[in-house]
């Protein structure tokens, strides 16, 4: 439109301060591994056909965003979800207005200092709660997940994992919930099972869940 030389100069000046200018090229081996990881993700149990019923990850991102907004504004009541139909929601600290059913879980209480049994499908199948979920928020002491699939337990719209401050370091280190990422989570007696039973979604872990709760 106007002043093309000015535009060129401005663009060049911006480019001169490009923070990625010095970024080294990625290690090809790492790139190959990353691609392989990505491509192996969907080829396992949780396919679009079986698990997420054709919904794309973007849908989940949008859903996650929606949940946050809704939780914030508290106008979800109109959608017509019936909290009475849910499992064991203990919506004690949930402000009024939200009709999401919630499963409350806690981190293990320091008992994971000892030995970890090797995760097997037998041990896993004894868990009372198991699900595949995406973290929609990580706040101080509370991680909220939105389950996409329930392997065991009464399905609810959301799951909140409480972690008391003193155990935060260790427990969150053991599981390391991060916003927007997908996890396979299991619990017994209201407490998260760590030691490899709960972790970021991976084909191996998904296969273990599939064996334990196979459908």
């Amino acid at each position, binding site marked *: 439109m106007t002043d093309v030389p000015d535009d060129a100069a401005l663009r060049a000046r911006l480019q001169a301060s490009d923070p990625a200018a010095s970024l080294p090229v990625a290690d090809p081996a790492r790139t190959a591994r990353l691609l392989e990881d990505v491509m192996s993700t969907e080829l396992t149990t949780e396919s679009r056909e079986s698990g997420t019923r054709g919904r794309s990850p973007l849908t989940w*991102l949008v859903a996650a965003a929606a949940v946050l907004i809704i939780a914030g504004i508290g106008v979800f009541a109109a959608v017509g979800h019936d909290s009475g139909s849910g499992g064991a929601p203990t919506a004690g600290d949930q402000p009024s207005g939200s009709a999401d059913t919630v499963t409350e879980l806690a981190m293990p209480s320091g008992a994971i200092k000892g030995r970890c049994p090797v995760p097997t499908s037998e041990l896993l199948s004894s868990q009372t709660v198991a699900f595949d979920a995406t973290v929609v928020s990580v706040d101080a002491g509370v991680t909220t997940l939105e389950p996409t699939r329930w392997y065991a337990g009464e399905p609810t719209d959301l799951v909140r994992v409480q972690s008391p401050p003193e155990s935060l370091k260790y427990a969150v280190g053991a599981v390391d919930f991060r916003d927007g990422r997908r996890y396979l989570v299991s619990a017994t007696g209201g407490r998260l099972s760590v030691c490899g039973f709960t972790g970021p979604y991976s084909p191996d872990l998904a296969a273990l869940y599939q064996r334990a709760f196979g459908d």
Partner: protein
Amino acid sequence: MSAPVESRRDHFEEVAPSLIEPLRRFLARRTDPATAEDVLAETLLVCWRRVDDLPEQPLPWAYGVARNCLRNAERSVRREQRLTARIATVDPPPVSTPATDASTDDAADDELAIALASLRPEDAELLRLWAWEQLTPADIATVLGVTANAASIRLHRARQRLRSRLRKSEAGSGHEGSRERRQP
């Protein structure tokens, strides 16, 4: 049903390698290294799942995906560490500072950084997409999900605003004038 697994794989393997470097850079410019790594994987996962939807020119589309993933990833960061996030925006993460040690002083265009940071975030992002990702207004439109016409107009205005900020800061500090005349 989507295409058979093998053909999806072939398609993805053909397209994805060319997306990785630009996406890494896109993310390195906008977030810390750890988040960049996470969001890169997330973005590629979306591309893999939607490989049948990939447009002829997949990069601007992939930038759009990365942008969404990044926003999602940073929502909690912003909530918990508003200040840190702000600093990270103004002051890019250490890994992405210019490597040329000899010319570090020269390369750090503080006036530009301040002027850019003083713009509305949408304007600054348009300028980054234009200058750093070197996208055309049509491609910027794909990234942002707006019409090409809107992107073109907004980009034009964003450039004007940036120029005006730079002029003001030049006027405010005359001794810096020599740098302004520097031809890159």
